[in-house]
């Protein structure tokens, strides 16, 4: 059980997010109505994705420094988790958009940026698949991962801010800070971010362990 404290934290926070997020009181607002609860599910996906992809890039840098294949494995699996978070973020966002903006996809710059960013990481997965040699695969994909993150950041942070967006806090829309004057939302929102991110890391570590065992089995054959 030693070293399991963060897994327990993740479980507790996830349970709190699910129960508290669906049952606690939220501000009553026009248009948003009860969909405001999606704040606990949609927004943490993006926080989780950025953090996980950042970690993935750091592991790629570590790999280039150390040539240790374990770091490459972590980078790859963290990127996979980032992709999962990204897809979930887009899906939860689309559902939210359907009920508030009236359409699943309205060409919002943040929607487009997120989709473009995901394309980058799909390319990363395909790049990894096109090498026979492990060392070569690890090094080239680490380079691409760092390169991708460097372009991904302006794509997702800078570009949407230059254009009008339907998202809160952009193009003259009030940010969420204007809504939660009584901080009711924050009470669940911040734990939700930590919970989802920890869950992502847990998920990644399971994948890494599975992949390590698979590699071991292949070597023993």
């Amino acid at each position, binding site marked *: 059980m030693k070293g399991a404290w963060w897994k327990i934290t993740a479980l507790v926070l996830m349970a709190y997010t699910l129960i508290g997020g669906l049952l606690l009181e939220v501000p009553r607002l026009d248009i948003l109505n009860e969909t405001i609860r999606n704040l606990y599910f949609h927004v943490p996906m993006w926080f989780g994705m950025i953090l996980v992809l950042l970690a993935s890039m750091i592991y790629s840098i570590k790999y280039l420094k150390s040539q240790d294949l374990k770091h490459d494995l972590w980078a790859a699996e963290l990127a996979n988790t980032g992709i999962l978070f990204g897809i979930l973020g887009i899906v939860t966002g689309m559902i939210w958009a359907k009920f508030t903006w009236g359409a699943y996809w309205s060409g919002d710059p943040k929607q487009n940026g997120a989709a473009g960013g995901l394309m980058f990481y799909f390319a990363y997965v395909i790049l990894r698949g096109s090498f026979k040699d492990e060392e070569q695969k690890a090094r*080239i994909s680490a380079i691409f991962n760092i390169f991708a993150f460097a372009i991904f950041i302006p794509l997702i942070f800078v570009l949407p801010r230059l254009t009008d967006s339907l998202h809160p806090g952009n193009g003259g829309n009030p940010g969420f800070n204007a809504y939660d004057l009584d901080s009711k939302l924050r009470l669940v929102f911040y734990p939700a971010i930590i919970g989802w991110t920890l869950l992502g890391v847990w998920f990644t570590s399971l994948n890494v362990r599975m992949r390590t065992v698979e590699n071991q089995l292949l070597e023993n054959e």
Partner: protein
Amino acid sequence: MKSIISEINVLVRKEVALEWRERSNLNGLLLYTISTIFVCYLSFNQRRVELSPITWNTLFWIIQLFTALNGASKSFTQEAGGRHFYYYQLVSPQSIILSKIVYNALLMLLVAFLGLGVYSIVLGNPIQDPWMFAVCVGLGAIGFSSSLTMVAGIASKAQGNNTLMAILGLPAILPMILMLIKASKNAIDGLARSQTLDEIMVILAIDIIVITVSYLLFPYLWRS
């Protein structure tokens, strides 16, 4: 620093001399652009005024995009494999990547402006602020080549080079092309130049990021 600049100078001259001797890459790219433009012209097959400025602009940039992809993909595959080892012994890897970027930018500038000429002859020219549009085309050529040279280096290490180049390259120039289309649309509409300053700054910032990252990462890439 001084040695890097002189190395880059020599390497760019070498690239240009090699290209000028054969001219296969340049001619190929020119023919690629012109035939794409011609196919677009025939496919639209309507009076040029009917092509709305937005369509005109987008089509132009899409053609530029694929020309750049094709041009850059040859950066590291042109010369025989053994010769790379020879260069790597003589010069630093940083000057190799920078010289490739400079050379690709020169090539793209030439092809882009010639392409723009042909494009506006056959499909009309709705541009109201030609100088601003020229700045956009120049920035585009430089931006595409700086983003794509590193991608070409990565793709050349893998098998299945051609598809991979497009897959890896398209997301890499996505932010760039969005900004370029916006800036050049402003030029077409003849808006005040100060309106376009934001986009130009972002394009330059992306260029700086991409070139810095390429500069830092290329030494790891060529080792294989």
